[in-house]
């Protein structure tokens, strides 16, 4: 893939989407992950660092004794971050064209970001670019989505295609319905107490039951379809591009970018690496 083609794919399936979903996305991102928190809390007093792809800034306040500058390609997300805490240090900047001084920072984090570049060449390049901002011996903690997500409902696993489009469902303002219509529209299967492996079967049974009860009622099939169409109108699905990393791949990319891999692991459907600048 040509660099231009890769960049326009990222524009359409990453940058534009994050700006469109920013407020809703931000509402869902508030809980810092334990290993990231631990990494930040073990930085020295007065250390200076960068958060590349900081989103709504959920890591910028974890350690008040470091000076952290968060940047994101999405001005929508940066505005969300500013709304959460006006004291956050924020920039709108592209991850491959960062405005930070080279060879200056003690540490960097980039959490669930590098997987959005659409070629390996560009993913290695962004790691190299982040490392260029660190002083010698500086550490970067990088997280990317894993291909191996055996325990997750998303169902990605080994052997699957690694370059995927992941849906984000945006809730739309629901039209006002009469209580009766509301009750009908609300009929949704409750999966809370169904074990994951049995859900597909349960759903099929639930749909068959619904279908049967509709057929018995006056409304008939047409009305059922109409209800479903209405449901679809009420939400909008946006697709984001991701490269899902297989085991060992992120560490390999970091070495390719010239770093020493200090430690690596798996947390919450992500592979992570602490890459040290030589």
């Amino acid at each position, binding site marked *: 893939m040509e660099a231009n083609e890769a*960049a326009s794919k990222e524009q359409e399936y990453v940058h534009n989407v994050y700006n469109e979903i920013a407020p809703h996305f931000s509402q869902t991102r508030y809980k810092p992950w334990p290993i990231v928190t631990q990494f930040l809390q073990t930085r*020295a*007093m*007065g*250390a*200076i660092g960068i958060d590349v792809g900081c989103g709504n800034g959920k890591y910028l306040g974890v350690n008040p*004794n470091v*000076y952290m*500058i968060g*940047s994101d*390609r999405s*001005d929508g997300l*940066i*505005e969300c971050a*500013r709304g959460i805490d*006006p*004291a956050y*240090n*924020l*920039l*709108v*900047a*592209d991850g*491959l*064209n*960062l*405005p*930070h*001084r*080279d060879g*200056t*920072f003690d540490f960097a984090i980039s959490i669930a970001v590098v997987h959005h570049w659409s070629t390996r060449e560009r993913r290695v390049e962004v790691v190299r670019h982040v490392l260029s901002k660190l002083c010698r011996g500086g550490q970067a903690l990088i997280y990317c989505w894993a291909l191996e997500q055996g325990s997750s409902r998303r169902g990605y696993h080994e052997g699957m295609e690694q370059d995927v489009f992941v849906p984000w469902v945006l809730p739309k303002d629901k039209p006002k319905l009469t209580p009766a219509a509301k009750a009908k529209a609300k009929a949704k299967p409750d999966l809370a107490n169904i074990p994951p492996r049995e859900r597909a079967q349960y759903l099929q049974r639930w749909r068959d039951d619904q279908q049967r009860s509709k057929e018995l009622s006056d409304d008939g099939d047409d009305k059922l379809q109409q209800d479903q169409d209405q449901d679809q109108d009420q939400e909008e699905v946006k697709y984001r591009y991701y490269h899902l990393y297989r085991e060992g791949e992120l560490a390999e990319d970091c070495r390719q970018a010239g770093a020493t891999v200090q430690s690596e692991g798996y947390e919450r459907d992500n592979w992570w690496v602490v890459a040290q600048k030589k």
Partner: protein
Amino acid sequence: MKFLTTNFLKCPIKACDTSNDNFPLQFDGGKCQLVQDESIEFNPEFLLNIIDRVDWDALLKVAGELGNVNLPPKKPTFPCTVPQLTDVGMAVLNDLHIMLLQTSITEGEMKCRNCGHIYYIKNGIPNLLLPPHLV
């Protein structure tokens, strides 16, 4: 954008990396609005380590552009630890806290001294995205 951040920003255009004029960015004092946030707490130990990292010449340049010409021409020297600080030292450090951390630029513009490209600060947020022809 806190004043301290100006000490860490350069022009992101790669062609400017070969020039020494891509840092610090040049601020147009007439177009910059500054605010002070007194709620940001003074932490002398944190600040001692930060001052150690500051490029003083760059700080002097930007401070001058924003109308502060009272900084000493050389970086003040401080003892390594807070208990060794004299009252005068603590006062100097507190002044630096007010300038570097409590003062921020809410609106304004900054320009690369090499290529002349202008970056805008709006609602406290600097935007350093490049137009496609400069990437």
